[in-house]
């Protein structure tokens, strides 16, 4: 990842374990700062809560009136509910890639980013996890997905990718929470010992569970953290492969393809890195993290972003190639409709936002022009949403049987649910940014110590 010339340092010169602890604790505790919570945070929270309120109303009305309030119908039986689920779970992947995969690879730039990236994972996975429940016609029976001995003598259909997906999401959400919390323990202990007020000491003290940094605790901590990271890395790949198989397992046009699992992993990496950049770039200034999130991080993230965009581009090319190389006339009809038909703007929007614009990141000067990178990242998030729209909607709208062709228009309730989850994501993330240490201090200290 490091070029021969002009590699920016991964930590600003002159930073020590002491200055790091003080700065990062000050970001969270803000002892003596006025106002105690910055105004930008309140403003962002107000917007997030507004969006979240919209989502709460949408869910309330959905539970009251049922799925009929959505635009889904035969033949497009999957709409924004599945789309948003796939979109969010892909966004969640970025934190796990950075935190687990690059931990195993031992790269030093990962350390300053992993806490924020993992927090993004958590919030996005939370948003994803609610859609499978909401899209059930009778959401109060969601626990039927759990395999348990019941009076009906029934089991979940273990041969279905949709049931695999249930286990994948369950494991991914629980493991992400545990991995995030486990990594937080030493930093919560630092905040406990640093905090002035009684209330804060109790708050962080209870959360730290009595971590004191003893030799025994560290010995086991390191071992568990490393194994957890080694498990999280294949886990995130399995989750997105299974999401891909949700589609590939069906005989619908355009879905029944063996390339879907890797295709979805590539897409997940792209949107994951995009959301990390979208969050890191403003927070770096707002929280004063310039010393720890340096140009090196922005540059590396830009390169990863470009790499995953190229992977996704490869998948798009193979998707088109396989369609026309393959024997299925219905696939070709659907694909031509995707490219030239009613939903063509969605297809071309996907291509431009996910593939064309990210090519600008070949230039280092572009990678370091933060507003531009931010806009490309935002474009990719929109582009990934459009990609899921074209995969889900155009395939279902052009089935093998022309008499069942149709189309799909999302209703206001589906849109408000999408924006509601954006509100949920932002609210949860803002709370984490405000209350939890935003940089993994203990790991940074060990990194600053350097090779002995």
């Amino acid at each position, binding site marked *: 990842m490091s070029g021969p010339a002009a590699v920016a340092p991964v930590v600003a010169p002159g930073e020590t374990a002491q200055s790091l602890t003080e700065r990062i604790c000050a970001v969270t505790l803000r002892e003596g700062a006025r106002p105690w919570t910055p105004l930008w945070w309140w403003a962002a929270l107000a917007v997030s809560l507004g969006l979240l309120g919209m989502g709460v109303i949408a869910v309330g009305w959905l539970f009251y009136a049922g799925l009929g309030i959505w635009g889904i119908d035969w033949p497009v039986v999957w709409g924004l509910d599945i789309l948003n689920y796939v979109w969010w779970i892909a966004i969640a992947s970025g934190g796990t890639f950075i935190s687990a995969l690059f931990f195993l690879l031992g790269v030093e730039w990962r350390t300053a980013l992993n806490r924020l990236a993992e927090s993004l994972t958590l919030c996005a996975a939370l948003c994803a996890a609610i859609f499978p429940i909401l899209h059930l016609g009778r959401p109060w029976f969601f626990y039927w997905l759990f395999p348990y001995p019941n009076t009906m003598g029934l089991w979940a259909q*273990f041969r279905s990718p949709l049931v695999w997906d249930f286990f994948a999401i369950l494991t991914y959400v629980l493991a992400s929470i545990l991995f995030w919390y486990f990594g937080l323990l030493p930093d919560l202990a630092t905040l406990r*010992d640093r905090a002035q007020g009684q209330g804060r000491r109790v708050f962080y003290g209870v959360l730290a569970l*009595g971590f004191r940094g003893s030799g025994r605790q560290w010995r*086991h901590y390191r*071992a*568990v953290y490393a*194994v957890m990271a080694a498990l999280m890395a294949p886990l995130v790949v*399995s989750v997105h492969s299974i999401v891909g198989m949700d589609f590939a397992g069906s005989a619908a046009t355009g879905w029944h393809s063996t390339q879907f699992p890797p295709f979805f992993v590539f897409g997940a990496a792209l949107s994951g890195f995009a959301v990390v950049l979208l969050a890191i770039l403003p927070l770096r200034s707002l929280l004063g993290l310039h010393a720890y999130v340096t140009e090196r991080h922005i540059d590396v993230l830009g390169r990863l972003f470009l790499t995953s965009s190229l992977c996704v581009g490869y998948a798009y090319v193979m998707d088109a190639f396989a369609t026309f190389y393959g024997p299925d006339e219905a696939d070709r009809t659907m694909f031509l409709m995707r490219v030239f038909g009613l939903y063509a703007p969605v297809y071309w929007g996907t291509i431009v936002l996910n593939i064309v614009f990210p090519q600008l990141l070949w230039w280092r000067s572009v990678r370091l022009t933060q507003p531009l990178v931010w806009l490309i990242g935002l474009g990719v998030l929109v582009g990934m949403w459009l990609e899921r729209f074209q995969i889900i909607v155009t395939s279902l709208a052009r089935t093998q049987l022309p008499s069942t062709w149709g189309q799909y228009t999302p209703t206001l309730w589906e849109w408000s649910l999408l924006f509601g989850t954006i509100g949920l994501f932002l609210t949860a993330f803002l709370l984490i940014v405000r209350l939890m240490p935003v940089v993994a201090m203990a790991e940074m200290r060990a990194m600053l110590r350097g090779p002995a």
Partner: protein
Amino acid sequence: MIVAAFATEAAMREAAAEIRRGDPGGVETYMAMEPDEAQGGAEGGSILPAVMLGGGVAGGLGGFLMQAYATTISYPQNIGGRPDLSWPAYIPTTFELAVLGAVVAGMAGFLVLAGMPRLYDPVDEAEGMRAAMLGGYVLVARPTDAARARQVLSRHAAIGIEDVAE
């Protein structure tokens, strides 16, 4: 017990090693980051990776057997002509439950072996412990020969030495 603070990890480690040498009483070190292996900080391994392996095997095996039981004994049903024991289809769920088992076993095992949650510990009474998670190096000794331990501590340039009631 005796609580002593040090300026460097190396000094703390040397003092801990020396006290341990002649004394069966306990010595524990406290610091705010992972001990440095190069300074002999990685004393002893951890059994937890093995515990996590056990949790993973239990989760995976349990998951596989649950699926096999459900589809062959409890509720066999012909779906698409597949055999009742269509084991390739069980692999994803087996893998996910194996990971879940390992992660939960790791977390639970850590809490047990690290003695957590433990919101109060007598060492908290020491002034020096306040700095342990803020970047300090703190040694806590429960020696049988307190006078010798004190000598060793001052020889290794301990910054502050406190006596704390157990």
